C-alpha cells in the first residue's frame, strides 16, 4: 500500500473548481452569443462592404434628337491604406496627379483613430479627377496597389446653351439626404434647377448595390451569398425635350448683351420650342469638376447681369399693349362691346379734367383697327365698360368678373410648367385697390384703374404667360400647359397635366376680330417690323412703360391658319415693341417655319444681336 492519503477529500474541491471555471466560460458564451446581439451586427458591418454602382443619368435631347445633355465620366481616386505599397514611387505618383508631396501626405494620412476612416476600408483620396488626368494616371496605375478608381457621371453640354432650361447638378445637401435617405448619400449629385430638378426622379435612375466580402486587409475576396442580395444599377430615363436647339441658338444670339427673354410655344401641344433667358451663360461652367466652385461664385457675384435669374418665369413685367387682346376678348364675351364698336380718339383720353395720352393714328372705328394701331383711348374706354358693367359704383363686382376671366387665360398664377421657380405675375384684385385707395381718400372707380386696359400699372406677367397668351390666340381659345418634356425615350408618358386641353371660356367667334387685328398690326400697324412676305404673322407690340427706358414687348403666332408657333419676346429697356420685340419674333418664326433665315435677313439678325442694352441702366 502506498502512503497514507490524508487529503482524499480535496478532489471535491478540484472538481468544483473545474466545473465552476467552465461554467464561467459557458456564461460568457451565452452572453456574447445569445444575449448581446451587437456582435452579430458588427460582424455584418465588418466583413461585408456595400459597393454602390452609380447608374448613368438620363440624357436630354432636343426635339429633333440632338443631344443637349450628355454624361462625361469623372473619377474619384479611392485608397485603401493597408494595401498601399509603402515603397511606392510617390514622386511619380504626385506628378501624374498634379499634386505636391505635402498634399499627398495630407491626403493619405487620415485620422485612422476616428471612426470615419479605417486602414482597411477605401476612402476617397482625391475626387473629381478629369478624364485627361485620369487617362495619364491609368497607364501607371498598376504601379500603385491600394488605389482604385470610382467613376461618376457629370454633365456635359455639347451646345453650350439653355442653362436656365436644362439646369445643373449639385451635391446633395444634408436636408435632401435626410428627407430621402434611401436614395441619396453624401457626395451624390442631385438636379438643382431646371429640367434636372423637375425630372430628377426620372433622370437619376436607381443605384445598384453589390455586397462584397472583404478580408482583414480590405481586399475583396468574393460576393456575399453569391450575389443573391445584389441589385443592378438602372440607368435614368432619357428625355426628349421640346426645345429646338437651332431656335435656342438664334434666340440667344438675338438677346446677346440684352436682358430679357424669348419663349416660343407650339400652340397645338403646349410644347416649348424655345426658351431663352438673357443674360445667359455656358452650362458647361457649372458641370461638376474642380473649377466649378470658382465659376459658380463668379456667376453668382455678377450683380449687373444676374445670369442666374431665370427671367422667362421669374421676372414679371407689365405686359403693355399686348394685354389689349385679352381685354378685347373679355369685353366681347361679356357683351360690353361688339367687334364693330367704333370710338373717336383725339390723341388722348380725357376724363374729369385730366388726359391720358395716345398717339397719332387712324380713327378706331372698329376693334380691328383699334388693335392695329394699339389705340389707348379705345381700351381705357373698354376696360371702364367692363369694370362698370354692374354700374359705376360697383367697380368691385366688375373687376372681380374681369379678373375671373383673366385667370382663365392662365394669368395671375403660375402656369404649372415644368420649369423650376415659376412666378405668378400679378393681377390686381379689388382688395388690392382698396388698400391702395382707402375709402376715406375717395376710394377707387373704373377710371382709377383703367390703365390695366392697356397692360400698364399694377398688372404684371411673366414672359412665359405672354407666350402662352400667344398660343391661346393661335388656338382661338384654349391652351395646353407649356412644358419642356416631349417624351421619354423609354416610352413612358409625360405627365397628364401637360395633355389636358384648357379652355379660356371665350367663344371661338370672338377670336376672329382679334386675330384680324393682330394680323393687321403686323401688316400695316405697330408690328410692321415683324412683317414677312410669305408667312402671315399675327402679332401685337407692347411698349411697357418703365421708370427707365421702356421695355420692348411683342407677342405673335404664325401662320395665321394652323399656327405652328406662338412666341413672346420681352427685351428690357428695349424701347418700342417694334424696335426689338417684333423683328426678333419674326426672325424666330422664320427660322422655325422655314428651317433657316433668308440671307437678306441675316444683316437684321446681326444688327439686333450687336445692340448692347446692358449699358443703359435704370436711373
Amino acid at each position, binding site marked *: 500500500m502506498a502512503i497514507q492519503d490524508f487529503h482524499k477529500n480535496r478532489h471535491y474541491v478540484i472538481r468544483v*473548481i473545474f466545473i465552476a471555471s467552465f461554467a464561467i466560460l459557458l456564461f460568457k458564451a451565452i452572453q456574447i*452569443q445569445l444575449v448581446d446581439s451587437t456582435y452579430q451586427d458588427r460582424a455584418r458591418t465588418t466583413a461585408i462592404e456595400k459597393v454602390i454602382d452609380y447608374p448613368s443619368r438620363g440624357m436630354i435631347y432636343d426635339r429633333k434628337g440632338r443631344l443637349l445633355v450628355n454624361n462625361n465620366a469623372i473619377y474619384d481616386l479611392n485608397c485603401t491604406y493597408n494595401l498601399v505599397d509603402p515603397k511606392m514611387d510617390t514622386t511619380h505618383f504626385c506628378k501624374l496627379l498634379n499634386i505636391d508631396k505635402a498634399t499627398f501626405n495630407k491626403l493619405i494620412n487620415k485620422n485612422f483613430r476616428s471612426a470615419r476612416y479605417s486602414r482597411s476600408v477605401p476612402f476617397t483620396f482625391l475626387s473629381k479627377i478629369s478624364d485627361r488626368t485620369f487617362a495619364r494616371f491609368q497607364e501607371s496605375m498598376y504601379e500603385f496597389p491600394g488605389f482604385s478608381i470610382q467613376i461618376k457621371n457629370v454633365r456635359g453640354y455639347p451646345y453650350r446653351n439653355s442653362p436656365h432650361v436644362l439646369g445643373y447638378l449639385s451635391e446633395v445637401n444634408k436636408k435632401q439626404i435626410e428627407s430621402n435617405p434611401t436614395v441619396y448619400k453624401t457626395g451624390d449629385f442631385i438636379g438643382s434647377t431646371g429640367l434636372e430638378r423637375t425630372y430628377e426622379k426620372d433622370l437619376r435612375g436607381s443605384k445598384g448595390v453589390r455586397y462584397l466580402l472583404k478580408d482583414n486587409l480590405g481586399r475583396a475576396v468574393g460576393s456575399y451569398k453569391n450575389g443573391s442580395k445584389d441589385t443592378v444599377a438602372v440607368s435614368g430615363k432619357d428625355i426628349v425635350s421640346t426645345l429646338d436647339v437651332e431656335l435656342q441658338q438664334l434666340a440667344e444670339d438675338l438677346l446677346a448683351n440684352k436682358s430679357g427673354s424669348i419663349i416660343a410655344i407650339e400652340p397645338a401641344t403646349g410644347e416649348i420650342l424655345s426658351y431663352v433667358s438673357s443674360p445667359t451663360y455656358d452650362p458647361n461652367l457649372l458641370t461638376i469638376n474642380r473649377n466649378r466652385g470658382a465659376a459658380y461664385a463668379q456667376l453668382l457675384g455678377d450683380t449687373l447681369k444676374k445670369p442666374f435669374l431665370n427671367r422667362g418665369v421669374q421676372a414679371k413685367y407689365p405686359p403693355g399693349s399686348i394685354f389689349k387682346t385679352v381685354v378685347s376678348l373679355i369685353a366681347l364675351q361679356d357683351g360690353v362691346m361688339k367687334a364693330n364698336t367704333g370710338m373717336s380718339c383725339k390723341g388722348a383720353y380725357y376724363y374729369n379734367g385730366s388726359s391720358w395720352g395716345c398717339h397719332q393714328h387712324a380713327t378706331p372705328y372698329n376693334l380691328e383697327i383699334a388693335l392695329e394701331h394699339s389705340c389707348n383711348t379705345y381700351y381705357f374706354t373698354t376696360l371702364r365698360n367692363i369694370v362698370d358693367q354692374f354700374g359705376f359704383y360697383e367697380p368691385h363686382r366688375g373687376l372681380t368678373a374681369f379678373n375671373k376671366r383673366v385667370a382663365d387665360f392662365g394669368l395671375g398664377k403660375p402656369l404649372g410648367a415644368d420649369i423650376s421657380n415659376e412666378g405668378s405675375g400679378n393681377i390686381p384684385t379689388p382688395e388690392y385697390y382698396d388698400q391702395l385707395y382707402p375709402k376715406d381718400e375717395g376710394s377707387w372707380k373704373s377710371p382709377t384703374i383703367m390703365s390695366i386696359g392697356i397692360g400698364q400699372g399694377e398688372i404684371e406677367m411673366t414672359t412665359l404667360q405672354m407666350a402662352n397668351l400667344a398660343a391661346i390666340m393661335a388656338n382661338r381659345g384654349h391652351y395646353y400647359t407649356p412644358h419642356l418634356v416631349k417624351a421619354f425615350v423609354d416610352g413612358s408618358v409625360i405627365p397628364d397635366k401637360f395633355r389636358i386641353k384648357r379652355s379660356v371660356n371665350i367663344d371661338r367667334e370672338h377670336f376672329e376680330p382679334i386675330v384680324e387685328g393682330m394680323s393687321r398690326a403686323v401688316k400695316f400697324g405697330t408690328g410692321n417690323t415683324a412683317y414677312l412676305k410669305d408667312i402671315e404673322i399675327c402679332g401685337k407690340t407692347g411698349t411697357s412703360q418703365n421708370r427707365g427706358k421702356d421695355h420692348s414687348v411683342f407677342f405673335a403666332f404664325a401662320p395665321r391658319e394652323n399656327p405652328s408657333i406662338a412666341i413672346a419676346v420681352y427685351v428690357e429697356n428695349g424701347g418700342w415693341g417694334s424696335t426689338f420685340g417684333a423683328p426678333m419674333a419674326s426672325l424666330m418664326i422664320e427660322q422655325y417655319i422655314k428651317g433657316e433665315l433668308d440671307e437678306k435677313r441675316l444683316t437684321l439678325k446681326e444688327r439686333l444681336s450687336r445692340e448692347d442694352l446692358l449699358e443703359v441702366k435704370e436711373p
Partner: protein
Amino acid sequence: MIYAVGYNDEISAGPFDLNTNAGKQALFIGLSFVTIIVCLLIDSNFWQTFGLLVFGITILLLIGVLIFGVTVKGANSWYRIAGFTIQPSEFAKFGTAVAISGFLSRYNTSMDDIRSVLIAMGMFLLPMFLILLQPDAGSALVFTGFLIVLFRAGLNPMLYIIGISAIVLLILGFIINPLFIVLGLLIIINLIFLTSVQKKLQWGLLLLGATVFAVFLAFVDNVLPALGIQALLVFVSGFTAFQNRKSQLVAQLAGFLVFGALIAFSANYFFNDVMKPHQQDRLNVWLQPSKCDPKGALYNVIQSKISIGSGGLRGKGFLQGTLTKLNYVPEQDTDFIFCTIGEEQGFIGVFGIILLYLILLLRIVSIAERQREVFSRNFAYCVASVLFVHIFINIGMTMGLMPIIGIPLPFISSGGSSILGFSLMIGVLLKLDSVRMNRARR
C-alpha cells in the same frame, strides 16, 4: 477508455479551419496515435523510474533552444529539424509531470515539510523560468497548473488563499488608485472587528454608519477624509481588541493591512512607472478595454468576440464563418481556433466543446482517484491540471475573459508538438490506469 473516445471526437473537430496546415496536422494526428500505442507498450514503471532523467532531458532541451532554436514571431521556442519545427516546451510539460509525480510519490516527501514544498515548486518553476526566457508567457503560465497537483498532494490551503488574495490585490493595484484599495482593506478589517470584537449594538451601528459615510466620501472623490475616518475606527477597534486580549488577531490584521497596501502601491507604481506602454496595453485590453484603441491593442479581442458572438445559437455552418474565413481573426488555426467553432457552430458547438472538455477533465479526476499508486494519481492530476489551464485560458482569452496569451487549445489547435505532447500524457495515463490492479498487487 472514454477519454480516448473523447479525444478522437475532438480530433475530428480539428480540420475545421486547418486548410493550410491540414496535411501536416493529419500527419501529426497519425503520429499521435503511434505515440499512444508506443506508450501503451512501454512498461508502466518506466516513467516513474526514469522520471528525473526525462525531466533532465527536457530541461536540457529548454536550455538548448535558447541557444540553437529558431525565432518565430519574436519567441525563441522552436527547433527546426527536417522541415518540421518542434517546440520543446510542449514536452517539458510532460517531463515536469512525470518528475513531480515521481517526487511526490516518494515516502519522504511531505507537503507539510517546507523542504519538500520548495523542491516540488522548484521542479515546475525551473522550466517555467526557462520558457519565460524564450519568451513564451503562455506556455510558462501552464506550469502554474501544477499548483493544483500540489494542492491535492496536501499543500496548505491557506497558502492558496493568501496567494489568490495577493494576485487579486495586484491586479486591482494595476487599475485602481491604491488609496481606494487601502480604504477597502480598512473597511474589511473593520467588518472583521465588528463581527469578532465589538459585539455591542451601539458600537456596531457607529462603525457601520461611519463606514457608509466613508464609502460615500470616497465616491465623491474625498478619499483622504474617508481614509482618516476608517483609520481612526480601525485604531480604536484595534485598541479595544488588544485590551480584550485578542492581540493575535490584531497582529494578523495589521500584517494583512501592511502587505495589502504594499502590494497595491507597488503594483500601481510598477504598472505606471516601470511597464512599457505596450505591456500596459496588454493588461488594459484585459482589465479595462474601454481605455484601448479598438483598431490597435484591442483589435484581436474585438474581432475574436465579434466572430464568436456572431455565431449566435446555431452558427453560420461549416466553413461559412465570414470573419474567421476572411482572416479578421488572427492566429485562427492555433490560439484563436475557438473563434471558428464559435462562429461556424454557434452556441451549440461551443456548449458541446466545453462540455466534452469538462467530461474529459472530470473523468481524469475520477481515474486519478481510483489509482492505488501515488505516482499514477499525481500523474493523472498533472494531466488534468495542464489540460485545464490550457482550455480555460485559451477559451477565456477568445471571449475576453482572460488576457491574450499564446496558448493552444488541446487536441484542436494545429501544432505538432502540442498534439504529440498531449498524446504522450494521455498515452502514459492510459497505460498507468490499465495496469493499476497489477501495480497495486505488486
